C-alpha cells in the first residue's frame, strides 16, 4: 500500500511545527500547566557486552604494533627492483594482510582531524598487477630482512628519527597514495576521498536554554550550519520525492517517491 500514513504524519508534524511557532509568538501558556516530563538518555540499541568487529579489531591492533626503525635501506633503482621482485616470484600470495588500517601513533601525534584510512591492500596489489615494488620501493639493507616491509618500518617520526633525511610516516602515506592516484588518474586525491572527517566536540559550542523546544534546538544547529539546513531541505529524505533515473519510462522525472506516486504491497 502506498504510505499515505507517512504523508499524513508529515503533515501532522508540519502542522505541529506551525502551531508551535504560532504559540511561541503568542503569549506563553500559564506556568505549571504542562507537566514536566522526566528526560531519558537511554540508548535503545546499546552495544551488547563483548561485541567486537573482529576484523577491524585485528586491523587496529596491527596498526598500533611498533616496529624497530630501519635505518639503512638498500638503494636500488625502482625499475631494477621491480624486475628483481618479479623474478623472485614475489606477488599476491605473499600478502599477509589483505586489509590494513592506515593508523599509527606517528600519524596522529599533532592533529586529529580525520579518521584513519581503510586500505584495501590486496585490491591495490591487484590493480598494480602484483607489482609490489610500486609501493614497497626500497628494502632494508640488512640481507636477512624480508624483501618488503611495512611502511612504518622505514617511515616513522621525522622529529625523532635518527635519519633526518627521510620523510615521516604521515608524509610517506600521503605522497605514496596521492602521487600514485594522480599519476594513474585513478583513486581519490582529496581528504574525504580516503578519510572520514572527525566530528568536533560540541559540548562547549552548543548554547541552549534549560529544557529547549525542538525548534529551538534546530535553530541553534542552524546558527552555524545554515547551509546544511538548506541542503537538507532539498533532499529526498526530507521531500519524500526526487529524481528516479533508474525507473524506466520515468528516468527524467524529479517528482518520484513515496510522497507522490510510489506504490508497494506492504
Amino acid at each position, binding site marked *: *500500500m502506498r504510505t*499515505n500514513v507517512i504523508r499524513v504524519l508529515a503533515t501532522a508534524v508540519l502542522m505541529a511545527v506551525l502551531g508551535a511557532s504560532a504559540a511561541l509568538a503568542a503569549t506563553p501558556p500559564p506556568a505549571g500547566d504542562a507537566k514536566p516530563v522526566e528526560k531519558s538518555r537511554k540508548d535503545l*540499541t546499546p552495544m551488547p557486552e563483548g561485541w567486537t568487529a573482529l576484523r577491524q579489531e585485528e586491523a587496529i591492533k596491527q596498526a598500533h604494533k611498533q616496529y624497530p626503525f630501519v635505518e639503512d635501506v638498500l638503494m636500488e633503482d625502482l625499475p631494477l627492483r621491480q624486475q628483481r621482485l618479479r623474478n623472485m616470484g614475489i606477488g599476491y600470495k605473499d600478502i599477509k594482510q589483505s586489509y590494513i588500517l592506515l593508523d599509527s601513533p606517528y600519524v596522529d601525534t599533532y592533529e586529529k582531524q580525520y579518521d584513519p584510512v581503510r586500505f584495501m591492500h590486496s*585490491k591495490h596489489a591487484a590493480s598494480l598487477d602484483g607489482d609490489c615494488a610500486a609501493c614497497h620501493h626500497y628494502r632494508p639493507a640488512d640481507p636477512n630482512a624480508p624483501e618488503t616491509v611495512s611502511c612504518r618500518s622505514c617511515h616513522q617520526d621525522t622529529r625523532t628519527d635518527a635519519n633526518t633525511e627521510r620523510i615521516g610516516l604521515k608524509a610517506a602515506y600521503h605522497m605514496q597514495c596521492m602521487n600514485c592516484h594522480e599519476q594513474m588518474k585513478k583513486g581519490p586525491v582529496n581528504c574525504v576521498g580516503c578519510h572520514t572527517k572527525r566530528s568536533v566536540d*560540541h559540548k562547549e559550542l552548543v548554547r541552549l536554554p534549560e529544557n529547549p523546544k525542538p525548534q529551538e534546538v534546530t535553530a541553534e544547529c542552524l546558527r552555524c550550519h545554515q547551509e546544511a539546513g538548506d541542503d537538507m531541505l532539498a533532499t529526498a529524505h526530507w521531500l519524500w520525492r526526487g529524481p528516479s533515473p533508474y525507473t524506466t519510462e520515468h528516468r527524467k522525472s524529479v517528482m*518520484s517517491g513515496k510522497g507522490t*506516486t510510489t506504490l*508497494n504491497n506492504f
Partner: protein
Amino acid sequence: MPDPKVDLTYVAKNVGPTSRKTCGTCHFSGGGGDAVKHADMSADLYWPSQTCDVHMGGYDFSCVECHQTRNHKISGRSTSAPVAEGSRACEDCHTAKPHYGDTLLDHHLNKHCATVACNTCHSPVYSKCAPTKTWWDWSTAGNKKREVKKDKYGKVDYDWKKGDFLWKESAKPEYAWYNGFTKRLLLGDPIDPEAKGFGPGEDLTYEQKRQLVQTRITEPVGSMRDPHSRITPFKIMSGIQPADAQHRYLLIPHLYPYDKEDTTAYWKHADWQKAFTEGMQKAGLPYSGEYMWVATTMYWRIEHEVMPRENALSCVHCHESLKGEQGCDRCHQDSRGSKFRQLAEQGTDFQLLQMMGRDVGDLIGSTDYIDFKKLGYKGDPIIHGGRFKKLPLGFGTANK
C-alpha cells in the same frame, strides 16, 4: 515532534558522526517492524556478527561509509523506491575484478563477475538474522475476534488492522537478470490487464489467491542476451491488496487516524469504503465506489547481509556437473596437484548454518542453486555453454 522524554540538550551537545543506528532506526524496520520490508536489513545490523554482514560486523562499517553523501544527498538506489540521489555498487570499492589473487580460482570467479552480481554468491540467503514478511493479504483484515497465532519464528500470522502474513527466515533468493533499471507500477497506473480480482464477499483459499494473476509493482529490467544484465538475487514480496474495480488501479486506504475525531481511518473504524474514499481523495484520484482484491508482487534487490568469502556459495552449489570431480581436467590438462575439491566445494555450509539455528534445512545438499533453466540456460553452462560463448566444456553430461 520528538518524544518529550528525549533530552534534546544532551543530544545536541553530543552530536557526532552518523552510525548504523542513525539510518537503522527507520530503515531496519521499514514496513512497520523489524526486517518486515527489507529482507537484507534488520535490527541485527546494529551489532552484527561478521557472518551476518562482513562489512558492518567484520569491519564495523557505518552505513555512510558506502552510502556516501554529498550535500546531505545520500548515494544508493533500491528497487523498492524510485528515488536515487547517486548510485552505489560493490564494484565502486571492489572493482570489476574483486577476487584479487592470481590463482585459478580468482581467475574463474572474476570471469563470473560479468554475469553474476556479487550478492548472488556473497548473500546466498536473505533474512538470515531475522525473518522477513513474504506474504501480506489485506483482504482478510478487519476480524477483531480472530485468534492470532505465532509461526515457527514467533511471528504473528494475523493482525485485524492488516490481514494475514507469512514470514521467512534464511530464505533462498529468487534470481533474475538485472541491468540496474526497474519497471515500476505507479499511482494510477493500470493493473495487469489479465488480473482478475475477487469481491469483498468472496472467500478464496490461500492456494487460490496464490494462483491469481499477479500485477508486478516492481520488476527488474534485464535479459540473458544483454551483456549489462547480471544474475541478481531478489526477495519476492507477494500479497493481496485492494484495487478500484472499475478504474483498475490500486487503491490507497486511509489507515492511520488523523486524530481522536477521525471518522474514516481503517485502523479505527475497520470500514474499507470509508478508508478508500478518504484515501483516494487525499491521493487526488477518483474512486468508483467499487473495490476488489487483487494479487500483487514486488522484487526487492538483496544487497546487504554480505557473507565473507569463506561463506559465499561454492562452485558446486550451482554447477552440478562439478560435483564429484577430482581435478580440473574436465577443461584443463590433467593436474592432480590442484586442490580442486577444496576450491570448488568450500563455501556456504548450510548444515553448519542449520546447526547454528537457521532455517535452512531445505537448502542442505542443494545444487543448481540459482536454477539455470529458469534464467534461460539449457542447463548447467559447463555442459551446455554460456550465454555468449556456446562452447560446452569437457566431456558432456556423463559424470566421471
